[in-house]
């Protein structure tokens, strides 16, 4: 009985997984087709219909390399700020006694429930109109620079490290800055990777905010320029779907590869604790 159920479960899981993966497979196939073939036969590679032209086509409409670079700068900036603020605050919350600690922790939890859609219009007014940071990397990064989930993950991580370790260093006469640099930072490395991977997905895939704030094509992250291409000019390309799918492969590639390489670190417990607080 149990064996039969195991096989059934395996079949259900595998069929489900193939359904989940199929659009990705279709994306790659579609990006390589010279003429789009929506029939069932078109889901299988046909050597006579394969080409790399779509990649050249999309690259002539939107500068893929520039788009990737902009996405990289945006994502890199967000990750850097998230990690720096996250480690410092997480360490302070977990290991140091200071006035305002409780309030800061409560704030970090509270910030997570403030929905972005409510802040969208005031942030646009402030950043684009008042500070003049439209079409600027800083303007893109600013609203995502602090990430309270990261603060909570780092705090959780630093809580597991025995206080005695830090007290011993203090007794040996190490200053707080040195304790942070020499003891806390090297210890936090495993949590670092999880936070970087988790944070990467956000800005790399973010569409709404950079779309609002960048009008100049040369500054747009790839997600934004691809979306603009999709909604405005796709109809004019020789093989619009092929070109869109080629762009989609370039956009999806880095995130998917990074995730597959490091999927071991994308573990449920870390994320669960981070979200639950």
């Amino acid at each position, binding site marked *: 009985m149990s064996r039969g159920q195991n096989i059934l479960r395996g079949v259900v899981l595998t069929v489900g997984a193939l359904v989940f993966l199929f659009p*990705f497979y279709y994306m790659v196939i579609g990006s390589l087709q010279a003429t789009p073939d929506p029939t069932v036969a078109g889901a299988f590679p046909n050597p006579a219909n394969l080409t790399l032209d779509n990649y050249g086509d999309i690259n002539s409409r939107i500068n893929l390399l520039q788009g990737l670079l902009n996405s990289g700068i945006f994502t890199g900036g967000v990750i850097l700020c998230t990690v720096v603020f996250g480690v410092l605050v997480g360490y302070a919350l977990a290991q140091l006694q200071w006035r305002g600690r409780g309030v800061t922790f409560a704030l970090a939890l509270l910030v997570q429930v403030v929905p972005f859609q409510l802040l969208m219009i005031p942030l646009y007014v402030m950043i684009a109109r008042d500070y003049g940071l439209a079409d600027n990397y800083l303007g893109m990064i600013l609203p995502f620079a602090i990430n309270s989930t990261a603060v909570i993950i780092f705090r959780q991580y630093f809580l597991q490290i025995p206080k005695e370790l830090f007290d011993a260093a203090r007794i040996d006469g190490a*200053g707080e*800055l040195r304790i942070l640099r020499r003891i806390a930072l090297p210890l936090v490395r495993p949590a670092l990777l999880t936070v970087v991977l988790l944070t990467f997905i956000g800005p*790399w895939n973010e569409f709404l905010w950079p779309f609002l704030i960048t009008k100049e094509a040369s500054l747009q992250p790839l997600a934004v320029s691809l*979306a603009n291409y999709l909604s405005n000019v796709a109809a004019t390309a020789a093989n619009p779907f092929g070109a869109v799918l080629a762009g989609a492969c370039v956009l999806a590639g880095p995130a998917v590869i990074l995730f597959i390489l490091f999927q071991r670190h994308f573990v449920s417990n870390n994320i669960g604790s981070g979200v639950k607080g």
Partner: protein
Amino acid sequence: MAFATKSRTAAGRSTTPPGGGSPRRKRPLLGKNPFGLLLSAPYLIFVLAVFAYPLVFAFWMSLHDYFFAAPGADVDRPFVGLDNFREVLADPAIIRSFGNVGIFLLINVPLTVVLSLVLATALNKAVRFRTFLRVAYYVPYVTASVAVVGVWIFLFSGNGLVNQILGPLAPDPAWLINEDWAMPTIAIFVTWKGLGFFILLYLAALQNVSEELYEAASTDGAGKIRSFFSVTVPGVRPATVLVLLLSTVTGANLFTEPYLLTGGGGPNGASSSPVLMMYQRGIEQGSPDTAAAIGVILVIGVLILAFIQRKLAGGDES
């Protein structure tokens, strides 16, 4: 290196009093380690600047006649009470967008909860191809919506693969340009896209369900299905409350999918969403005050839904 050593001795002297523990000195104003406040200060300033201030600004804006003016220009923005809200509630296009999100949530939320719990339970027990299966379910979650939207348009277009397979059963007009099917198609897209994350949450929750409960259930003669309903489902209830809340919030935030999949909420506004209306009214048409009012109504709606879900799912112990 030399600098680090120097600063260490300097800092060491100032923070640790000579002679170690002088008993019960007066507690310093900023706590035992004021250094912690220093480390947190940049974060706190950021929270005030990009969360607290815009939050207050949003409410203020929704109660005033606010419009874009040239930078530095000193203009009068009179208090108008609830006029912006009245305008929003009298606009059939905006009312329709709220209705659309209702349809979206009715499809997306139950589907997300059921599928992610069932798949997480199955994945939890799976031994073979575990890595492959995990990756397969999470890949849509880590990919940009903008990237996969292109494939979905291709798959669900008039002569797309889905319609080719369905043959005479295919809806006419096709999915994304059909008034009845546009919103459900978007809901299914978002479910597919986000499921990996919710599976992850349930997998974490399943680790906390004690194995003894399953053993007790099976000695009492409960089958697999019975023990799923009487052990697993109550065991992961805190996670279910969280999944309900997060999928509702994600649904209320819907923007990218209707903007790209259905060309800005078409056909005839059948797939528009409140955030899409905020973008159109606030930024395209230059009435940020109306957009702020939509935002306030949306957030109040989400809070009410979250409250009802909490009552129904009984997540007090989470």
